[in-house]
């Protein structure tokens, strides 16, 4: 059990972060808080990739001995970092769209509380 925490504590941390994000999305009623939960959730995945790519004593994959090391076994795989660069961009775009939708919702209903919003929508239907 202690092995889990000493060897894989980064993943435990990522998992806790992920659950905080899911909690925010599912339980919180305010749209902005939902957004924050979603961002935390996305960030936890980014940390997961970066943690998975880590290697103790590893270094950048550059052949030049002055910059890195010529030993291929010491290289840190740069692919996950590149992928996460893309994922961060996607995350920023998603947040942008989400905030635009939140602003537009607020202008129309004057509230950001999910329960109140549903209430107002139901009233309009009746």
């Amino acid at each position, binding site marked *: 059990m202690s092995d889990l925490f000493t060897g894989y504590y980064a993943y435990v941390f990522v998992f806790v972060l992920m659950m905080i994000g899911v909690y925010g999305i599912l339980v919180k009623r305010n749209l902005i808080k939902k957004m924050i939960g*979603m961002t935390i959730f996305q960030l936890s995945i980014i940390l997961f990739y970066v943690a998975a790519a880590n290697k103790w004593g590893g270094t950048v994959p550059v052949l030049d001995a002055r910059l890195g090391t010529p030993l291929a076994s010491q290289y840190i795989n740069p692919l996950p970092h590149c992928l996460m660069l893309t994922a961060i961009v996607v995350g920023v*775009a998603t947040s942008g*769209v989400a905030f635009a*939708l*939140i602003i*537009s*919702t607020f202008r129309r209903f004057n509230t950001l509380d999910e329960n109140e919003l549903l209430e107002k929508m139901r009233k309009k239907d009746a």
Partner: protein
Amino acid sequence: MRNLILFNSPALIPILLMGSAMLLLIVAYKKPRLAYWFTELILLSTFSIAILNLFRVLREGAIHYRFGSWLPPIGIEYVLDHLSAFFMLVINGIAFWVMLHAKETVPYEVKSKETPYYSLVLLMLAGFNGIVVTGDVFNLYVFLEICSLAMYGLIACGEKKAPFSAFRYLIMGSLGATFYLLGVGFLLTATGTLNMADLKVILPQIAHTPAIWIALVLILLGLGLKMALFPLHGWLPDAYTYAPSTSSALIAPTGTKVAAYALIRFIFFIFGIDVIMKHTPLLTIIAILSALGIIIGSVMAIAQKEIKRMLAYSSVAQVGYIGLGIGLATPYGLIGAVLHVMNHAVMKGLLFLVSANFRRKLGHSNLDKLDTLTRRKMPWTSAAFAVAALSMVGVPPTVGFFSKWYLVLGTIHTGQWLFLATILFSSLLNAVYFFRVLERIYMKPYKGDSPQENDVSCDEVCPSMLVPTLVLALTVLLLGLFNMVIVNNVIKMIVPQGL
């Protein structure tokens, strides 16, 4: 020139769509009317390229395209095989006809924002086509997000409640995409590759490790959210109901289908049925959930009073058919699922176009207010609706019958009688909610005082809306009549060996 087009044909459609989505903003900056024609021109060319691609794939087999000539495990590869080419044709065909319909509805429903609207449409289609053609699992994630982001925008510009339903969709969609990304992370750390063909080789060797199962579960969960597979369908009804008519007519036939494509790709072509069946009961779970979705979606559709909302719930049920076909994991099940993707795309596109016609001419698409007067006013639209309704129920000469037929064959071959009962019972439920509308349009006499029923003359929608509606109605019949040609020549080639 011809060689250049042939050489680049797999990548041509996504790049053309994405480039023109940006170009459109400049071209139609001053004249919004130009946006429609520009979009139609681009969609016509992608439609023709998709047709040519399908014939080329049938003739030559899978086409591989390497970006920058980097060889596959390192570079990103586009693969156009039978499955991709078929899905691509369905997406671009539907997009062309539905957008032809948009000429009158978009200025009417999306006032003064036409140019960005069309740009988003092109961007979304670029995402769809990218998902379908890519051979790289991370590339698929990026395209999934491109099309989803465009989709949120397309939904949000609808009625008053649209932004909120789009926001809920965004939360669920992003959650799904992030689960997918996490699954890809597990795959990457376990195998060290992102290329689909490479994964297919490596996965069976390490299929016994828990990391692979977790990756599979996460990917299926993510794609299930995007596909609105029951019980992950919560975002769908509101999003489809409050979106502008053109958006729902475009997203309902194609949006969930690309996620279905990704599901088929992962289950049958990357992990492989053997690996999944040996280690997990996931496929049975998918089949059971889909069966539940079929029944509950149909029951919810019966409870709706508004045609668009009814169609949205019916989409949940129809996605269930596709999921059931996938979950059966037999050749007939897969054929039924892939055929149903095409059938449902045509039928649901047609039904949403009809609801758009009602909304444009009558100002509503409320079930209670329809009567024979509607039919007198709009005979062609009503006839198109009747064709689509019969097809949704599954009456023989229409397409809807044949995909259900293959699904039924799949259940009989595996002896899963409960699923057979589900399909038959759901046809009955479909009949309930579609014949209810038909009864109002064709039987229910008009009760008001004036105008007299016989005085009402034909007041059909304008040609730009009527032609796509009728073409899709005709397609429903023609695809039904010639379904053997499609199944034998295209869909049977999709079924992977060893299934």
